């Protein structure tokens, strides 16, 4: 049996009907009693235990992973409401899944290591190609998490993934694993077998203003920049908008202007969204930040966002060569959706222009994207990014 991939999607307001409709669409195309792998993306309104009951009954998946998301990416655009799933049946590919629950305040290196090890134990094939994770809570110490996964799978093993998201409230984040809905968890999917993988990760932001330096950090909290409270960088650039530092608007507008930390190794800017501002003027970032790094406020616009997506798609196409992608997975920052607004549709169209109109596309908008700076050849420099688009093509 060659690889068969099918995507189902529904926005029916009745959750049961919605999941059933999506399952039927997948089942119609797969036309098999069981399904090797299901990847599930659901907007927060559709996160309910019923969905896995219906999926289990209808598609009988051997492996199921997924995540809640504030935006489901499909071939015809991005939607903030609905349920989407991709079903894969294949003799060429094999899958191993794993999950670790309640990872808050645990050793992230250990979590990463155990997650990868358990997925390896579940994988039937001897060849391993990529590890994809959906998680919530790894942001604080993501470098340790990635190191842990790599310890189990190999130093230059492709580690990819997305941080679960919701409707910008940062409250209803969930991960799907087999028949369970998890919170504060990491779910892993190990892909193995004989297939080709191509990927690219881009952002399209440019640094603004004079270089400043991070002078005091505490994990993902930046205490001071140039020895003054970190929030002053936003006060300086955004003006009075930033002064009511605890309001949602700041977080909202700050999402459009992430901080960029220059990394000497890969000579790239590591982008970080800010998710909160503390009373003392410290900034809480969505992911760890390097001490002493040069920091800039970053800016982007619709055009540069679209261009970065096109660049990513073109890199993937170059990596694929003559091969046609059987499935394109996209993990894109939810914050980019704010910049793209109603043009999010154009971004998907631009990707399709490059990768082909018939290629099935599915993905999610995330609070963080795990991937390299660039393509598979830069895989050693894998980080948790913000404001990026990660395109993964499977052939």
């Amino acid at each position, binding site marked *: 049996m060659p690889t068969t991939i099918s995507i189902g999607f529904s926005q029916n307001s009745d959750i049961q009907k919605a999941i059933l409709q999506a399952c039927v669409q997948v089942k119609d195309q797969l036309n098999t009693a069981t399904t090797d792998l299901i990847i599930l993306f659901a907007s927060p309104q559709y996160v309910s235990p019923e969905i896995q009951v219906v999926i289990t009954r209808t598609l009988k998946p051997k492996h199921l992973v997924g995540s809640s998301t504030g935006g489901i990416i499909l071939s015809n655009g991005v939607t903030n*409401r609905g349920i989407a799933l991709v079903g894969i049946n294949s003799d060429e590919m094999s899958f191993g899944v794993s999950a670790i629950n309640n990872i808050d305040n645990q050793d992230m290196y250990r979590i990463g290591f155990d997650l990868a090890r358990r997925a390896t134990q579940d994988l039937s094939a001897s060849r391993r190609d990529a590890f994809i994770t959906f998680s919530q809570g790894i942001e604080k110490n993501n470098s340790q998490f990635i190191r842990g996964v790599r310890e189990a799978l190999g130093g230059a093993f492709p580690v990819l993934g997305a941080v679960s998201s919701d409707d910008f409230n940062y409250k209803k984040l969930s991960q799907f694993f087999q028949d369970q809905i998890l919170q504060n968890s990491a779910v892993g999917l190990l892909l193995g077998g004989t297939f080709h993988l191509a990927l690219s990760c881009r952002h399209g932001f440019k640094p*603004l*203003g*004079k*270089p400043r330096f991070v002078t005091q950090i505490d994990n993902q909290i930046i205490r001071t920049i140039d020895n003054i409270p970190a929030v002053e960088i936003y006060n300086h650039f955004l003006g009075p908008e930033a002064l009511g530092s605890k309001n949602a608007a700041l977080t909202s*507008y700050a999402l459009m*202007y992430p901080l960029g930390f220059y990394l000497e190794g890969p000579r790239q800017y590591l982008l970080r969204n800010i998710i909160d501002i503390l009373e003392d003027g410290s900034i809480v970032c969505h992911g760890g930040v390097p001490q002493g790094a040069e920091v800039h406020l970053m*800016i982007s616009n619709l055009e540069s966002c679209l261009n970065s997506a096109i660049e990513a798609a073109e890199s993937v196409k170059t990596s694929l060569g003559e091969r046609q992608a059987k499935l394109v997975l996209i993990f894109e920052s939810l914050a980019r959706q704010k910049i793209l607004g109603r043009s999010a549709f154009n971004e998907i169209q631009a990707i399709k222009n490059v990768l082909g109109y018939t290629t099935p596309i599915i993905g999610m908008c995330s609070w963080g994207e795990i991937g390299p700076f660039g393509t598979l050849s830069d895989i050693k420099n894998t980080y948790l990014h913000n404001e990026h688009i990660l395109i993964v093509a499977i052939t």
Partner: protein
Amino acid sequence: MDQTVLWILGIIIFILLGAAAYLYYALNTKEETIQQMKEAHHKLMRSFNDLDEQAQLIVRTDLELNKAREEMDKRLNGLNALQRTSRQMSQALNENEIYQKITPALFEDLGFAHVLIAALNDNKVLTIHLNLGFKDTRAETILKEIDVDDPLKRALQENQSLSSINCTSKNKEKLVKVFDSEHFVISPILIQRGSIGFVFAGNRYNAPAVTQGDEELITILARQIGQSIENAQLFEKVFRSSQELELKVADRTKQLAGALQKVNEISKKKNRIHLRCVP
């Protein structure tokens, strides 16, 4: 010997003087270099600061553009969602069906988590037709609180929408307390004879403030509900009239058929009499 010593001393003094002159020259050059470097550093810093000021202007302009675009996107999305709902509502034939067409998804698209739509029933009592985000008991309490507060009741019956950005501080305070939502829009459902209810849409304290666009969208929705109710009532009236008319026509037809039958019978009798009379 003395002369040799003197020569040596002379040479040493000469060397020392030379060295001193060189050191003096080197010091001067260094001072100059430091001065030049300081000036270059100063220039660089000034350029950096200028760059920063320029960046500040760019960010602020970009922020304004982003805000305008976001507001425009929000309005367009809201109008799209409203258009879909309006189309559905216009197909409804009765009041209940109209309210059923208003789905929670519409308010998600409009960005409101707390929604209450209430309208007067046949007994002129406010009843809830849609409740999102409030507990049922809380929603009932809200209606009771409005019912006993005459000034608030009157304010809600006026033709204008009230919102957290346009109403008086007194009304705002009351509405925030009653609906437990800091950011809100409340719009009357109007038909020709006046207000018959209201549409409340709001968000709790940590949400962004409502905009004029939000106010317009909720007002359009409330007007559309009123219009659809009026249309449904008119439709019902026309339907009833046509039914009454049809009944009357049927009755009249029956009467005419009866009369015709009688005429026919009389005609037959007349014919029979006529036949008997003819020799």
